[in-house]
């Protein structure tokens, strides 16, 4: 009975700690977005739907951060990390398309070539994806090894 009570307390304490960690990470990420947006705000008037696009990214990414933290120390954490990396790759492909960004503003056609940025961002995202896969493999390895010891 006492053991069951202790386990229950431990679970609640762990969950509270995870929730706290997730909140801190989410708040930190939102803070970074908030600061960066102050720099990008001047161009939001020129680029249509820029704020909406960035906000969608931030919301989904914060959601994945929170869920990933809540499921930490389980294999699902790595699933959500992989999902996060895949989401970033998908978002980059969806929003940047070919990497050449064009818009027309009062008879002036503006073209910005983001291909170099896109390539680097994709490579970093793939690195993140690989890291998550390695972490999942490592987690499963460790889980399989401990019972033998």
């Amino acid at each position: 009975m006492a053991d069951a009570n202790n386990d229950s307390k431990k679970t609640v304490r762990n969950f509270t700690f995870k929730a706290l960690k997730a909140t801190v990470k989410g708040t930190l990420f939102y803070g970074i977005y908030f600061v960066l947006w102050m720099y990008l705000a001047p161009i939001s008037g020129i680029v249509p739907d820029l704020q909406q696009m960035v906000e969608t990214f931030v919301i989904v990414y914060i959601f994945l951060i929170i869920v990933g933290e809540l499921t930490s120390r389980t294999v699902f954490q790595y699933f959500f990390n992989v999902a996060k990396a895949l989401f970033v790759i998908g978002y980059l492909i969806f929003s940047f398309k070919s990497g050449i960004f064009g818009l027309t503003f009062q008879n002036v056609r503006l073209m910005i070539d983001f291909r170099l940025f896109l390539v680097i961002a994709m490579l970093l995202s793939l690195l993140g994806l690989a890291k998550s896969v390695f972490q999942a493999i490592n987690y499963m390895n460790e889980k399989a090894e401990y019972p033998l010891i």
Partner: protein
Amino acid sequence: MRIPIRMIGIATTFFWIFLIAFFVSAVYSVKDVHFDFGEPQMDVTSDNKVIFSLLVSITNRGFYNIGSFNISTEVSDKEGFTITRGSTFIPVINKNDVVTITHNMTIDVNDLLQRDKNYLFNDTELKIYEAVSMRIADVIPVQASTNFSMPWGAPLYNFTLGKAEYTAHNLTHFKVVVPIGFENRAFFDLVGNIQIQMYNSTDIIVGEGQTNIEAHHNSPYNGHLELYVSIGEMTESGHFEVYFLTLLFNYGPLVIPYG
């Protein structure tokens, strides 16, 4: 395996921070780049070509240098034929630097007339394509371009020869006074010479004369030209052949019938 994974994580985080910080600061610094375009100037070169000059001042108060700055202009007619193009290139504009350049474009009016003589006599519109390109922070290529049209005023708009007046000069020749009228709607002054040859109905030249003209831009010109013709070879009808010899172009013959 934990250490390599941690190293990958640290490296990825570091590069992400660097990439985002660089990207945001590069985009942000664009707002501190200013362009000032002066009034376009027009001049005539020693080889009688029209040269347009545009003074452009670029102030780079951004965080990074601007590389491969290029301004290019292309002037074409309604059918898309390129009349002239010009470009000005600056390899690097350093941060906290102000660079002033002159963007030049040359038009050879003779070449233009070879394409279509209507530029002399009829107003039209020219299409202009203007493009400014640069590399922000030397790595992000940006190009802004626009199309607009510019009116072309004909230098010899509504060119007409009036009714010739004949007076006896001596026993063998008439003095013929031919009124000349046109409006110089071009952006340049017209200075030169008009030569007229008078032909009878059998295409034999019966007389010729010339006069100097000076027509300022956007102003009408009214003058006359005197020529002496042989009485014996005169016929009631025939034609004039008009030649224009100016600083900017030579054109002729323009055939105008009389009688």
